[in-house]
């Protein structure tokens, strides 16, 4: 296999808070190959967004980031100069944020925002920048692209703004895109369209895509591989089909079972839920972080849980001897 475009080993992010150190990301190892989609999935506060921000070097100033290595196309992002990082960011690695309302500058036209990274990274002159902006706006399905360049973000709908964000990320032809909940603020119909678009563009341009989401429904449909995060750790990872067919971590099973499914979920038949709350990550956590919410927890779960590896790169942090069955009355 060729060098992955992103190769992160033992990433940790610590944030000092009033009552101690918040261990927001603990020991995250992941890789993304060219043309591959890795979905990082988990609930709010599991560290999935911080993981992508850590890769981009966009953590808040107080946060401390450590890792064994964090290579982007062979270059270690931990040791690059700030100047080199600025050269890479927005250029060879780009980010799509959740809220297209707040991540576009309301005082700039769409055209100015699209051409800015292209010009800044010296990819060509203004004319070439405009041509590429029009090309990409059309490519992401925006009609009358030339006219849109002069418009401001408030003149566009949420779906269109998210398309503009995607076009902006593609301006410099990146090797890696990090998308943080790119469709969470959108309608289900627009969500399907945007995900289609991302998958198509990825095939066309051969980019690596790291997609952060809380919805395993999205993961099932777009990911080649999945990493399930809980309390700052990757608790299960592997090829998508394997993880959905034979989830080895009860948390993964819980996330699968809580999704309502048309014509199967019915009134009077409750969805699966994950009882309880995410533990505090201030201070250290001993043993399995999920054990207080786990229906299968036993006494050994209080001790450190090693990572177990199975076939095809499937790996999990759980001592259960086999795949976790669905607890629903009428599972998929």
């Amino acid at each position, binding site marked *: 296999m060729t060098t992955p475009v992103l190769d992160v080993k033992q990433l940790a992010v610590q944030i000092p808070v009033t009552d101690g150190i918040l261990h927001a990301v603990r020991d995250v190892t992941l890789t993304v190959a060219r043309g591959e989609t890795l979905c990082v999935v988990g609930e709010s506060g599991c560290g999935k967004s911080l993981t992508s921000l850590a890769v981009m070097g966009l953590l808040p100033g107080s946060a401390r980031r450590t890792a064994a290595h964090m290579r982007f196309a062979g270059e270690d992002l931990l040791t690059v100069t700030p100047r080199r990082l600025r050269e890479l960011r927005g250029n060879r690695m780009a980010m799509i944020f959740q809220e297209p309302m707040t991540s576009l500058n309301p005082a700039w036209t769409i055209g100015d925002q699209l051409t800015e990274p292209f010009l800044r990274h010296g990819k060509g002159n203004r004319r070439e920048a405009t041509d590429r902006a029009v090309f990409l706006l059309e490519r992401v399905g925006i009609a009358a692209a030339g006219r849109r360049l002069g418009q401001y973000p408030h003149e566009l709908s949420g779906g269109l703004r998210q398309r503009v964000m995607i076009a902006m990320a593609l301006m410099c032809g990146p090797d890696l895109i990090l998308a943080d909940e790119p469709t969470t603020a959108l309608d289900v119909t627009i969500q399907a369209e945007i995900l289609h678009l991302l998958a198509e563009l990825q095939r066309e341009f051969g980019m690596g895509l790291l997609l952060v989401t809380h919805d395993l429904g999205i993961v099932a*449909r777009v990911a080649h591989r999945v990493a399930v995060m809980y309390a700052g750790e990757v608790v299960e990872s592997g090829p998508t089909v394997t993880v959905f067919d034979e989830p080895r971590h009860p948390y993964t099973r819980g996330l699968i079972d809580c999704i309502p499914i048309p014509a199967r979920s019915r*009134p009077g038949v409750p969805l699966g839920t994950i009882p309880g709350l995410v533990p505090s990550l201030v201070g250290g956590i001993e043993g399995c972080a999920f054990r207080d919410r786990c229906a299968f927890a036993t006494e050994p779960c209080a001790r450190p849980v090693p990572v177990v590896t199975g076939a095809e790169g499937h790996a999990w942090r759980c001592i259960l001897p086999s795949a976790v069955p669905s607890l629903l009355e009428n599972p998929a």
Partner: protein
Amino acid sequence: MSDQQPILELRNVVKRYSVGRGMFAAKRPLMAVGGVSLSVPRGQVLGLVGESGCGKSTLAKMVLGLETPTEGEVLIDGRPIAQLGRLERARLVQPVFQDPYSSLNPRKTIASIVGLPLAVHGEGTGPERATRVEEMLAMVGLAPRHAAAYPSQLSGGQRQRVAIARALILKPQLLICDEPTSALDVSVQAQILNLLMDLQSRLGLTSLFISHNLAVVQMLATRVAVMYLGRVVEEGPTAEVMVRAQHPYSRGLLASVLTPDPRLGLPDTRLGSVFPDPLSPPPGCAFHPRCPLVFDRCKTEAPQLRHHQGASRAACHAAERDAAMAPA
């Protein structure tokens, strides 16, 4: 007689706004809701589904009395909402909104947020109110210690439980849930849906449940109405709409729900992506520019909401044609 009277009845409700386009341009009418008639009998849940901009939230606001219909009537328990005072209205109908972060006062404790409706309506003495708040918090699955907490100390799911408790404490006749789970994680959404389902069966609530996701609506709704550009395009019993949707738009909405099946890939909703401009709605059927089944008649004549087959009604020329061709 009063048992058969629907709790909520909408009679040909229209809401038009006048939209300015700059200082000198003439204002143009925007039809947010274009003649909707629906009713919800006691103890039932009507699911209202559609994309952003389809008018479902405007409809909810009219039912809550926050907006006045341009035409038509909203009746709650047989009484026109226009004739009710503010307090009286609040006793009959209560909302749960989408965003549990902005719908709770950050400076009040949970107990005072949930107890405020009782105080406003002068119900009971202080200690009696405190007891009712305590019972209500327990009913929505919050611990007694949460009573003294502030909204910022709670998670999104817990805040939505507070919003539900506040809405239910006056025992309203009608509960309006406007995208109550859209801002939540999928796992928390499941908890809130289960809670609403449980409250539904325990209290026999009557409610209007609004969402853009049909799979969410089906958990609670006895009937479903699908809205598109201000009109109801399909209405019927939930199971029937979920399994045999007649309108191509309903089918598109269903197809766009991403179920956790890794072998299916991304669905082709066949809807295209161009949502029409509500300021210049397409002629004929408003859905025809996105419709995979479009034929000539759709471009000129607006279809009416009718029975074609089964118990649902649909506003679709193709459904009418197919029903006519099907053997009786």
